[in-house]
């Protein structure tokens, strides 16, 4: 790992030092093991993550796919160690980076991981960047804090990075402020900050959600190039089935704080092994469905304060049987070669077995949820917290 640091001896030594400390074992960078996170609020405990496990290898792109409230962003925050606490608490599990549980590290050591080793790109660049400092100053901060560089050296580094993320006229624009850039350019600046210290793992949390498709294509291309250059492990968090199909090697689908399916991207799209994944894929408008009703998943994602008993997806599932409502949530298990799914009926789903009967249609799910029950969102919450939660589900 050659890091060209402009300022000479001291910094170079430090770079080598930190690399020596963190060496991936057999290409395995990150292991998340049975991670559990909950949010303790006035009105109860929201279980945002309920036992999430996955691995990330060098040069790999793992997509974490899920709807809002599925826990995908919270997973990223827990890995980065930037979870708001309180109300968020990690109640179980480990996050091992290069074999070492980083959740147990003291704050000081944790800071040496965050940035140089594991880094993150946020969704909304305008609110993630500080409006009162120039972008160059903000990028250069990485070098001042972590590498101990002085002002002019770190600024030179900032210009180099802005060039690397293809910002035109980097040298002139290094002193410009975030509001002077377009959305796509701001996202590039965020990426420049994230890759400043050549991290081994980059977590991109909905990096293109706020952008237009033509700009999205540019940003995804940039991320792919950067990843190939540095053999970086990339965790891409998104809800966009199109983006995932374009770039992911492996996909983990999250629902109600659990990974419900994990598989190779090609296999997952060819044949989903969990009814939720199948529902998501079926709900995309396809060419041959023009003028027909889309097959929607009925109902809503569950309220994390009262996740339904049994499999959390059972109220919306077309194949739910009694076992799904009564038994504890099915664990994520190997259902085919290199494929994990958390459903009692995955094998039947994968083989299109006729034994797998549809037990309820979308209309029945809708009718049940809309008319029979209270809206799942309101159950057990008082009005004040609902208003707070209105815009941004946990």
């Amino acid at each position, binding site marked *: 790992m050659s890091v060209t640091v402009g300022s000479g001896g001291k910094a170079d030594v430090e770079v080598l030092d930190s690399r020596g400390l963190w060496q991936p074992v057999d290409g395995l960078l990150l292991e998340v093991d049975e991670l559990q996170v909950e949010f303790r609020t006035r009105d109860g405990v929201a279980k945002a993550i309920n036992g999430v496990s996955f691995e990330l290898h060098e040069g790999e792109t793992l997509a974490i796919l899920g709807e809002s409230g599925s826990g995908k962003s919270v997973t990223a925050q827990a890995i980065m160690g930037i979870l708001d606490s309180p109300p968020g608490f990690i109640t179980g599990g480990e996050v091992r980076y290069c074999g070492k549980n980083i959740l147990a590290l003291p704050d000081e050591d944790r800071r040496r991981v965050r940035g140089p080793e594991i880094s993150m790109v946020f969704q909304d660049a305008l609110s993630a960047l500080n409006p009162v400092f120039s972008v160059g100053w903000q990028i250069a901060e990485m070098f001042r804090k972590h590498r101990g560089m002085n002002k002019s050296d770190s600024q030179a580094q900032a210009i180099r990075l802005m060039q690397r993320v293809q910002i035109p006229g980097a040298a002139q624009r290094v002193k410009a402020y975030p509001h002077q850039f*377009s959305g*796509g350019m701001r996202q590039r600046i965020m990426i420049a900050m994230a890759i400043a210290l050549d991290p081994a793992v980059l977590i991109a949390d909905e990096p293109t959600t706020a952008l237009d498709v033509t700009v999205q*294509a540019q940003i995804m291309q940039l991320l792919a190039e950067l990843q190939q250059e540095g053999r970086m492990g990339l965790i891409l968090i998104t809800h966009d089935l199109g983006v995932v*199909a*374009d770039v992911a090697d492996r996909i983990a689908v999250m629902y109600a704080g659990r990974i419900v399916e994990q598989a190779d991207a090609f296999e997952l799209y060819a044949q989903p092994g969990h009814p939720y994944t199948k529902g998501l894929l079926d709900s995309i408008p396809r060419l041959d469905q*023009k003028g027909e009703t889309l097959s929607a998943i009925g109902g809503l994602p569950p309220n994390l304060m009262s996740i339904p008993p049994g499999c959390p997806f059972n109220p919306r599932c077309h194949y739910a049987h009694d076992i799904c409502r009564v038994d504890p949530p099915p664990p994520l298990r190997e259902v085919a070669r290199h494929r994990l799914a958390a459903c009692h009926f995955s094998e039947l789903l994968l083989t299109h077995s006729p034994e797998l009967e549809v037990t309820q249609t979308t209309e029945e799910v809708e009718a049940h949820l*809309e008319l029979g029950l209270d809206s799942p969102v309101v159950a057990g919450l008082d009005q004040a917290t609902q208003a707070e939660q209105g815009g941004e589900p946990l």
Partner: protein
Amino acid sequence: MSTSVRQEVVLKAEDLVKHYPIKAGVLRRTVGHVKAVDGVSFELYKGETLGIVGESGCGKSTLGRMLMRLEEPTGGKLTFDGVDVYSQKGADMRRLRRDIQIVFQDPYTSLNPRKTVGDIVGEPFDIHTDVVPKRGRRQRVQELLELVGLNPEHINRYPHQFSGGQRQRIGIARGVALHPKVIICDEPVSALDVSVQAQVVNLLERLQRELGLAYIFIAHDLSVVRHISDRVGVMYLGKLVELGDEDQIYSRPTHPYTQALLSAVPLPDPTMRHMREQIVLTGDVPSPANPPQACRFHTRCWKAQEICSIDEPLLIERPDGESAHLSACHFAEPRVIL
């Protein structure tokens, strides 16, 4: 559905223009104009869906608001059922508004948090008092809630007690309350989760069938627009650059911008990853305050030649291989993208 039978025109836009002044200095003098919408013409037929796509800042939402007359035009003419919309005043304008309604993008901010669902959906009846007698209102609101798939008993609840998808249903119930002929849907599903989007799209399609509505469907999600639209218009920097049947736009696009836009859409199928060529445009959309001369796309276009910066290409029928549809490019040529 089929465009071979030209149906009745309900809404006709002719050369619509909306410029916003830019003011600066102590005297707040006008130093320029943001040309949000700059000469847009189209016709909307009865019961059809016209999709409008384009990137943010291209003027599609401003266009939507102009069609509602929420924005006064800088120029142009809008005709609804033969009536000139922009010359109507007072009671006549109010009567006209019954026929053109809007559903907004963000179901979190477009509903008043202090009002109950009954008040929100019933508010159109406060303004148009002759539509439903006061005594029948509550019942009518409940019918509307049922129509959009909400529990009529929830009439006394507040918006925050509903999820995003349900809130959008409330917005739609309010939109159809006065039996409009046209509904402007301004990004109605973009704020919703994937699994909920399909529910709302299905609802809009069902209402169109049952109530004979015509939709202007403004969105940036090209696959949803393709699914719901009969015809599609593509906007770039305040102008329509291409307009045609859904099939013409998606299968045989002739304008380079449409081609780039379509090729940038990630397809939810990994096997297509290296099968298709992606046109990655450089740079961002130029500022509408100072749009490029002549063809506005020429600064980002790979086909651009000298003529493109001198002579503005008109939106006229140009051959697309099988037939011809409206396209504003000197070098219009069909290209298979999807």
